[in-house]
């Protein structure tokens, strides 16, 4: 390269280095490579060069042009990067700002427990049956072998509604068992069903609420024994509480609508409330083989069909599972309690995700 070219190169390099934005850079580019640019002028002047030197000069000019082009392009990339960086720096936000609120509500613990119960018994082939909250005396008591004079009626603390005509007054169902009767009248055996819903008793203190929820089960088939009753409830309790070796005890008891009747206890520690260990027993549900009178009241021949039924308090198992101390807040709708104990609606109970 000749001196004039070297000088021009040095001059351009210096100018490029001094350019701090794309506008200055573009002025240099035009000044060198533009129509009236220095390099364009030199190329134009090539024709005036003596023919014997033209080849050499041409080669030198081409080399020089490539070098200039590269230098200009490199500077452009650098300036663009700097400009982007400057913009990014300017666009910086405070990432610690709280996100825009998109409130998600929560599912009530009673509904959650119901879902879990349904999932587990559903896996055993049960459907869910419904019935009304206001029941006739016959469905709530008579059909279930609890005649008007029965001492068990005294334990039920029944709410009554005004009588219509000569019939006994309707009641708020004291248990979910009337739905057993409705199911047996509607569908011939075999039957595998559970009933979950509101039940009512005139009792109100720290451990009793005038409205509460029960889960009832009814399984009727040929050849089902008390052993199956124990199996179903043991399987359920261990799955529900997620304790595979939860101790489960069955004790003789009495309910008018089952025989034999059993109270079911689970092992726990009375002092700590921890389930599954501790050597104490906690009564958790009632159960039994469906009484032949109940079957017969629904037109089912007990010589052919037998089965079992159970009932448990939804709140009670919820409180045990989650270590909740007090029953009353369940119905209070205190938003602080709901937010504390509520469940994510987008994570419903699914057996394959674990109960």
């Amino acid at each position, binding site marked *: 390269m000749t001196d004039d070219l070297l000088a021009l190169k040095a001059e351009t390099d210096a100018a490029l280095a001094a350019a701090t934005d794309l506008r200055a850079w573009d002025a240099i580019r035009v000044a060198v490579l533009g129509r009236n640019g220095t390099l364009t002028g030199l190329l134009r002047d090539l024709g005036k060069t003596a023919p014997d030197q033209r080849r050499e000069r041409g080669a030198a000019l081409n080399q020089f042009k490539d070098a200039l082009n590269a230098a200009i392009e490199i500077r452009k990339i650098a300036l663009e990067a700097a400009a982007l960086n400057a913009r990014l720096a300017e666009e910086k936000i405070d990432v610690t700002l709280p996100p825009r609120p998109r409130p998600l509500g929560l599912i009530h613990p009673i509904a959650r427990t119901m879902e879990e119960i349904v999932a587990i018994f559903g896996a055993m082939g049960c459907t869910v049956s419904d019935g009304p909250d206001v029941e006739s005396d016959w469905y709530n008591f008579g059909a279930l072998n609890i005649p008007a*004079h029965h001492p068990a009626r005294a334990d039920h603390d029944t709410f009554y509604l005004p009588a219509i005509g000569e019939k006994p007054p309707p009641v708020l169902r004291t248990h979910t068992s009337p739905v057993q009767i409705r199911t047996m009248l509607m569908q011939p055996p075999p039957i595998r069903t559970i009933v979950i819903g509101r039940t009512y008793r005139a009792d109100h203190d720290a451990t009793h609420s005038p409205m509460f929820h029960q889960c009832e089960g009814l399984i009727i088939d040929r050849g089902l024994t008390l052993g199956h009753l124990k199996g179903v409830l043991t399987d359920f309790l261990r799955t529900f509480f997620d304790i595979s070796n939860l101790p489960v005890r069955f004790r003789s008891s009495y309910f008018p609508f089952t025989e034999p009747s059993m109270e079911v206890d689970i092992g726990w520690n009375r002092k700590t409330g921890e389930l599954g260990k501790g050597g104490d027993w906690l009564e958790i549900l009632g159960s039994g083989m469906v009484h032949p009178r109940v079957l017969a009241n629904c037109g089912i021949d007990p010589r052919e069909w037998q089965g079992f039924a159970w009932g448990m308090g939804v709140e009670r198992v919820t409180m045990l599972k989650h270590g909740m101390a007090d029953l009353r807040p369940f119905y209070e709708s205190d938003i602080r309690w709901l937010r504390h104990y509520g469940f994510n609606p987008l994570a419903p109970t699914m057996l394959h995700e674990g109960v």
Partner: protein
Amino acid sequence: MKFSLSWLKTHLETEAPLDTITDTLTRIGLELEGVENKGAALAPFRIVHVREAVQHPNADRLRVCTVDTGDGTVTVVCGAPNARTGMKAVLATAGSTIPADGSVLKVGEIRGVKSEGMLMSAREMGLGDDHSGIVEVPADAPVGASYAAWAGMDDPIIEIGVTPNRGDCFSVRGVARDLAAAGIGTLKPFAPAKIAPVFDSGPHWVNNFPETCSWILGRTIRGVKNSPSPKWLQDRLISIGLRPINALVDVTNFFTMDLGRPLHVFDVGKLTGETLTLRRGAGETMLALNGKEYTLTAEDCAICDAAGVQSIAGVIGGQPTGCDEQTTAVFVECALFDPVRIALTGRRHQVVSDARQRFERGLDPALMTDAIEAATALIIELCGGAPGAVTEAGAEPAWQRDATMRFARIASFGGSDIPADEAVTSLERLGFNVRHRDAEAVTVAVPSWRNDVAGKIALDQHPDLDGEKAAAAAEGCETIEPENDLIEEVLRLRGLDAVTAVSLPQSGPVPAATLTPRQTRAALARRTLAAQGLNECVTFSFMAAAEAAPFGDTTDSLRLSNPIAADLDQLRPTPIATLAMAAKRNAARGYADLALFEVGPAFDATAPHGQRLVAAGVRAGSSPRGWASAVQAVDAMDAKADLWAAMAALEVPIEGIMLTQDAPSFYHPGRSATVRQGPKTILGRFGELHPRVIGDLGLPGPMVAFELDLDAVSDRKRRRKSAPDLSAFQPLRRDFAFLVDTTVAADAVLRAAKGAERTLIAGVTLFDVYEGDKVPVGKKSLAIEVIFQPRERTLTDAEIEAACQKVIAAVAKSTGAALR
């Protein structure tokens, strides 16, 4: 029922420890409810003789006592002012726990003198507050004996729950019998001797109400001296919480508990005439032993002398003829009353007595004569006197019956492998007598006290059952019930824990759907509403009638006859009512911005079964405060959005929805709507609550609400979807601003625009609503974006212009709109 261990042991010969007895009670269905054992804490304390008490050499207030414990002598330093030579006291030796503070006593040295124990005050033993000195025991108390035993405080009180079927265990003897059958000791014989009468006069029975009383006995005892009972009898009654009254009354209470055999005693001197008549009540009023007056109905059984009603049979006796300390002649009544009639009388008059409790569960009919002899013997023992002849009316009913059990059913019903021999032995131990046995089955005679086994079967079959089916079922019950009764006994004695648990056989390779479509709707609505930011509540189905009234029809037929509280007497017309009150409670706690919902019943006398399943919600206050957007008060459109989200989740076709502005009166009339599907179906409602309702109930305002009737939503259809129309051409968007009367519904404009060119228009969006000074009064501007979706080729400018004109014309035609 309560009884003491020593009382139990008057019927049961056993050495079994208390724990074994109580565990067995629970196992065989007599659930232990509690054991009170004062004696346990006192067990280490013995009665001692203070041989010498001398002044402590180094302390003015202390004495050094040399104490004879019965098997040696120990030295005790004692500070009690009453510690003195020759007294008898109670000693705690080193290692004992002091009940008052739980500390463990150690051998110590007090001011240089060794002390090997402590003489106890009442307070230190946890027996009261007396700490003025050590307990002084009478001189005749045996040295070395357990203080608790000597003082009668070592007798544990056992309380069990007796289930309604086990009337026989409402007695100490019945419990003893069941325990003996379960292998805890042997039942002592009970065979009171017949007492020969020495006269034959006094009241006799006339039974004019045999439906209530099948058999009744009575006996006069003359020349009795009634006074307080002896200590043993008083102790027995006090131990189970009964108040001793006088010997004659105490005897009846004793047998009520001991044999489960209620008795009644009349003071013969206060009776008028020579007969006691059982008859229907006739409106008479009687002053009862509890001091209350009862007016008898024709369904009650009255026991009357010539002067009138003296007792309500089986429930409570009358005060005027009761026995007191002046009684010299007593008439003992021992009757067999009908359980159902006694239960109904007891309930009618709301009397809960020990007698009623036992009568209504059924008594042992074979115990009548033994009971009256035992009672006579005890009365003569305590009060002296001469027995008269037993008078009776009616006769022992035929209670004898058999029951048969097929051995195979122990396994096929009971799930148990108990062998036939063991099963039969269990029944025999319980008092069943084998009448016939072969390889397949056993037939036993049911003991007189077990009226829960093979009893009379009363069915209450549904009236609409097919006659043949009903008869077969009833016949099946006759066979199966007595057999199940016996299997229950066999399983009960072995313990139900001995039955092996068997998992339920699968009903199919994969279970069918668990929920019905309606139940699935409820679940989906619940999840969807929670995902909209509403928190799920569970509120009571009942509320105060006055608070329910603004929310709908509060008919009397949905008002409780016996509410637990005045503010929980009316079944709610809609969950919105209870949710609104919940919002009010939260606002009072300082949480006024709320979004609550519930899926539950709305009670409506006109609905099938009187209720509808609804998903309802309320929002109150404002949107959450935040840096990114301004706070906005909730409005009707928030409730609409919630409702629309739920309907979308339930796949309600929104296109077919119609809104009418006739929501119930608790809504703001101009800011609410009824959501209809077709001419008849009301799916739900939404809107702002009426300011008057907010004011009257003191609700936090503004408040908006919605409800979706899940019973009105139709089941989801599993229809196959048609293939989607995914055009290859870009859509065109054009904006239009229309000027319409303010009364024109936005929906009308949107529908008209959309209908202008159905094949071309893929969507219409309302993006601006303006009312104000830039438009004429009475007008509003609605700006919409219309999306044209070409399908076969790009549209030409002329085609686009034509389509736009169609939109303008269609909107103008149906709403009177003009392009702005």
